[in-house]
């Protein structure tokens, strides 16, 4: 009797797991990239890129598909939920957002005062996991996605991840995910950032340096893709208010985290530098004003007196801080340090860091360790 009962319970369990309606891979439309735009007729337009089921790369064995390995679908609606509903219909299969790699938003939409509400709606979409990279692009995100090539023999998903890892390691882009944007707009710490994306102009010449803006980059580089990512989109209260170019983004990264390798020119000499540790940030209250001390420690493989480079880099870093102060944004993560000077979240909120940051006394010191 006991064994029968146990067997009965074990037999019932698989039927009660909610897996009766199975979600086969072939029945899922896995969106890897999603673009969000203002629809031409008002409302929201969504564009996704999904892999074609059954397609194999041309070099792989057993190629069964022909043509583009990815499908691009677009749907629009009066608002985000309606656009998503229309996209569900357009996908013709179960739309699955759990493997989203990239969320791209047009600059016009990101600069719209209604964007913070849209961030919340996107973040609470079922199974849209917020680890996706977050990009603000020049022009319409739908066009941006359609023009995104996949490199020969690579999958779009791994291609994008590898590219962003490489760019982040060299400080070309901030490390920004959609979760960072969502959390920052919902909390009272530093402002979020996004990656800046722009189409390649097509006028290229071989070069390998990162210049201060995309026109210079386009003029001096040749890449495999017509979609480029360089620089930072800045947000204040969830609305895009400006951007930093490649060189400024490197400074932003040096003030917030570790940068594996980068070049810097000072006193007519090129320095190959890397940061061994993230910068050390200290905050203290000086009356109503906050004083922030940032110590950036770098390593150079080349011998020589680094004092000129240290001073020049400190000036460059302070210029970026001043630029952000002028825009009234604080993307450096100083808030988490400054908050320690307050006992409770209410006190910290009342202090209103985001409006006080332009008055903050920020001091930056740079130390470059060179071989003896």
């Amino acid at each position: 009797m006991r064994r029968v009962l146990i067997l009965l319970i074990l037999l019932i369990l698989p039927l009660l797991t909610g897996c009766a309606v199975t979600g086969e891979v072939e029945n899922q439309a896995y969106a890897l990239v999603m673009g969000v735009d203002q629809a031409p007729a008002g409302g929201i337009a969504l564009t996704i890129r999904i892999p074609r089921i059954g397609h194999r790369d041309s070099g792989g064995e057993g190629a069964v598909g022909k043509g583009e390995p990815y499908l691009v679908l677009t749907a629009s609606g009066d608002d985000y939920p309606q656009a998503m509903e229309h996209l569900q219909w357009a996908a013709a299969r179960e739309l699955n957002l759990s493997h989203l790699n990239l969320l791209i938003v047009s600059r016009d939409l990101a600069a719209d005062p209604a964007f913070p509400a849209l961030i919340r709606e996107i973040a609470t979409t079922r199974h849209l996991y917020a680890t996706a990279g977050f990009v603000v692009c020049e022009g319409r995100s739908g066009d941006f996605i359609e023009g995104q090539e996949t490199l020969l023999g690579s999958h779009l998903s791994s291609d994008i991840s590898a590219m962003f890892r490489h760019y982040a390691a060299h400080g070309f882009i901030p490390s920004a995910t959609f979760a960072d944007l969502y959390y920052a707009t919902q909390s009272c710490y530093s402002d979020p950032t996004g990656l800046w994306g722009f189409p390649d102009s097509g006028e290229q010449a071989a070069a390998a340096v990162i210049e201060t803006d995309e026109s210079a980059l386009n003029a001096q580089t040749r890449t495999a893709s017509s979609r480029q990512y360089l620089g930072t989109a800045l947000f204040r209260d969830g609305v895009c208010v400006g951007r930093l170019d490649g060189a400024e983004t490197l400074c932003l990264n040096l003030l917030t985290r570790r940068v594996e390798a980068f070049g810097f020119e000072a006193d007519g000499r090129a320095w190959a530098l890397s940061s061994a540790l993230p910068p050390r940030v200290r905050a203290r209250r000086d009356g109503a004003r906050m004083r922030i001390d940032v110590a950036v420690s770098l390593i150079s493989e080349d011998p020589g007196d680094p004092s000129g480079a240290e001073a020049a880099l400190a000036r460059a870093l302070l210029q970026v801080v001043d630029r952000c102060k002028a825009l009234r944004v604080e993307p450096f993560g100083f808030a988490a340090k400054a908050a320690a000077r307050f006992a409770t979240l209410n006190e910290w909120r009342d202090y209103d860091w985001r409006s006080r940051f332009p008055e903050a006394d920020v001091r930056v010191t740079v130390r470059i360790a060179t071989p003896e």
Partner: protein
Amino acid sequence: MRLEMSESAASASLVAALTSRLFYGLTLDVPDAANAGWLAALAGLLLSLPAVWLICRLRPAARRALALPLLMGLALDAARAVECAAYSESCLAFNHIAPALLTLPLLAAILRCAWLGGDALGGAARIWIRLFAVLILIVILYQLPYYNAGWLRPWLGAGAGGVLRAGVRAAGWNALLAGSAAGICKAEIGFKRLLRCLLISTAVAAALVALRQMMAPAFTAEPVTRFTRIDTLLTNGRAPLYLQLPMIVAWFGGMLHLMCFESVAACALLGRLLPKLKAGACMAIGLSAVFALALLRAPRAAAVERLAPYLYHALFAAAVMLWCVKGGEAGCAAS
């Protein structure tokens, strides 16, 4: 079937269940302390000590009488854990599933666990504690670059009031589960042993709550829904996608232990309260109560929600009254 437990089984079950209760309570149920939830866990330990000490010192007759408020609290809390686990399943499921369908497998697992008896639950808890440590270690190692210690500041979070409110709730769970463990032991379980279990559970839970608060900042812009809390905890965060599996296994394993311990303890306490009732009948009545409360979603009822903050007050008051009426200072083991 034997619902009562040996001292070591009760200790292991208590640690596994209480750690889960404190973690899920302070991150989902009572986020009053905001980013100072870990402080609330420590405050809860301090606040609960007098009540646990008092329960330990009660005479057997008084302890039998205390079984009534304890089993009522356990049944409701077990149903609450079942409801929360079912809700988190629905957040993770790709298809929309009826809540009852998600609740039934959990109830089947509790039934099976109660059928095997209290000592089996204790044995499972010993294995789970080791497995849980490995899972959490994997999560921490992979999650390490994504933790932001700055989000723990300001240190007092929502303020002393919020920390105290959450601390009182934590004290209630401590008193409920530790009092129940003392009540369902075959032999006397000493205050020192309970204290050790409370210390371990609180330390682990406080550390986990602090780590969770380093995963996402305290949301201050608008009220946070339960869906958002579960979503940011289990899936929708800055953590890589592949970390979801160990996190979800740790979450549901912990919840399962909590539900099973509370349900089995409720049945065992019913047996203590009504000694003439056979173990099978205790199990039938106790589990039926838990199942009914869970399926009716009673713990989410407005009246129950209003009363929930007073769990610690009720247990402490009951222990004091029984001490006065029936006396204490006896039946407490030395260690």
